[in-house]
């Protein structure tokens, strides 16, 4: 075996996985930034997004892109509605809000179990064949997913950076009270922020659906990854999450090449703990400890 080949392949794989982690973590950290709420239901929105894409593509025969867009819109609306209807009394109450989202996650997951059953479903791939990138070989379906993920992240960046509601949202993330003084109706941005977070999780789920199987239990693992990314990057810091997600993807990819079984997970946990002891504000030092 050629080591440079393996290393390139691992790097490409790691970056792809990291991108998907980022999609997952960005929504999570956004919700935390706006609402000071750790959203344990984030993984369930991922799961619902995966089911949404599955039914829209396999059932309604829609093109993949349309399915992702519809899933995002549905999750955005649903998330905003849930925030307004269920989580409203827990705004600014970190601990109880967190426990409430645990309840929400249980309800969502078990509703999915009741309606969709426990058996994993598999979705037709978006594209066939493989693509060569220099030395590395990537399944074309994965490449599609990467392109979509980049597009979503670029859209999110544009929205947060340039649009009025996006800028207002960032202001709310930075300082709720000062934002309110500037005439931003922060009341409006709680449901919007939560809906946006749910929407991003759902998009991540929808994009992953053709690569992996779809079942009511798929939300747990990505949620754990989002936690790790967010701790490494610093809570509430989106640039930090970007760097951390890519690093996590790469470390996992290399570790699976060199280490066996749960050694890689131990290594990552050790990195997380070291980070928390040495630099709790996160990689870029913009999160909060």
């Amino acid at each position, binding site marked *: 075996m050629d080591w440079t080949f393996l290393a390139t392949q691992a790097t490409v794989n790691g970056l792809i996985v990291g991108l998907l982690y980022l999609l997952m973590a960005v929504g999570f950290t956004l919700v935390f930034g706006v609402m000071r709420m750790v959203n344990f239901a984030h993984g369930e929105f991922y799961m619902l997004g995966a089911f949404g894409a599955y039914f829209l593509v396999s059932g309604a025969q829609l093109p993949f892109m349309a399915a992702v867009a519809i899933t995002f819109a549905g999750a955005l609306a649903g998330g905003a509605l849930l925030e307004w209807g269920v989580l409203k009394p827990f705004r600014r109450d970190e601990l109880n809000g967190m426990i409430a989202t645990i309840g929400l996650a249980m309800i969502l997951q078990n509703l999915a179990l009741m309606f969709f059953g426990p058996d994993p479903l598999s979705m037709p791939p978006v594209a066939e064949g493989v693509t060569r990138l220099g030395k590395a070989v990537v399944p074309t379906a994965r490449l599609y997913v990467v392109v979509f993920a980049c597009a979503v992240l670029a859209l999110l960046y544009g929205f947060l950076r340039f649009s009025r509601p996006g800028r207002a949202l960032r202001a709310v993330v930075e300082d709720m009270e000062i934002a309110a003084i500037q005439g931003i109706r922060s009341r409006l941005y709680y449901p919007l922020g939560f809906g946006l977070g749910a929407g991003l999780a759902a998009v991540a789920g929808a994009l992953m659906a053709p690569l992996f199987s779809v079942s009511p239990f798929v939300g747990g693992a990505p949620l754990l990854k989002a*936690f790790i990314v967010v701790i490494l990057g610093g*809570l509430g810091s989106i640039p930090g999450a970007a760097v951390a997600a890519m690093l996590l993807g790469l470390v996992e990819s290399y570790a699976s090449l060199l280490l066996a079984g749960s050694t890689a997970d131990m290594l990552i*946990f050790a990195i997380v703990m070291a980070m928390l002891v040495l630099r709790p504000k996160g990689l870029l030092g913009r999160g909060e400890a």
Partner: protein
Amino acid sequence: MTTLALAARPGGRVGPLGMAGLVLLAALAALPWFSGAFVQHLAVLVCLNAVMVSGLALVARCGQLSLGHAAFVAIGAYASVLAARHWGLSFLPAMLLGALASALVALLLGWAILRLRGVYFVLVTFAFGELLRLALLDGAALTGGANGIAGIGAAQVFGFAFDTRERFYGLALAAALLSLWMLHALFRRPLGHAMDALADNPALAESTGLNVHRIQLLAFVAGCALAAAAGALQSRYIGYVSPESFNTSVSIGFIIMLVIGGRRSVWGPLVGAMVLTPLPELFRGAVQTQHIFYGAALIVILRFLPDGLASLPRRARQLWSRDAA
């Protein structure tokens, strides 16, 4: 509020209503000895859960929420079973060793993360729970991997074997009462008041000279040791341990018991365990409905009764006195 109300009662004397409650509780505790195997089994589980949730309550009283509590139960169970198996320790020393191992892990983990905001504590304990489960699955040479360890002998204390349900219920009940009494005693002491104070307002507590980090660490270590002791007991009762009996949903189950029972009361863990342990039997064959009910109950209790079911008597008393006045 609770602490003030408790402190205001001279000498902690129990009123007639409280007396009636205690008598009722004693009757309930004696009941399993006069009923069938099924009730005894449930009663044992209620007692063990009450001890584990008491450990979680200790952590929560300092304003922290552990999402990896089941992992510490697992450490207690595995360490005690392995110590008994490989080093031939008898039950009590093995249980102590399990509690010690759990306390040590909690000390290391807590030292690193308790200095940070509460959110980090939740995220890291969650990740730790998952990691430990993976490690138990992976270390098959020692832990038996996914198959777990079967054929664990009954607990023996000074030559007396707790090998029947009746006998084991006695042991479990004693453990539950002991942990209840310890919590009760703790929260009447200055250390207990300090814990309540730093849960309410850590910055203020720090400025009055309390060492917030040290007290939170102490509570975390003690709570995890308690959980581990209960884990050692549980492994002897069931006779089997496996990584899947300590996954995150078990940790979440503890949180649900604690929140529904009541976080600010010594009785909360017991009430939560009593209400929620038998509940799956009602929903038999409808696990999904059961979990949806749990989730909904959690949100409703948080919203309308944030101090849990254990605060109902106090609420009733408040209503009563308001009507009287």
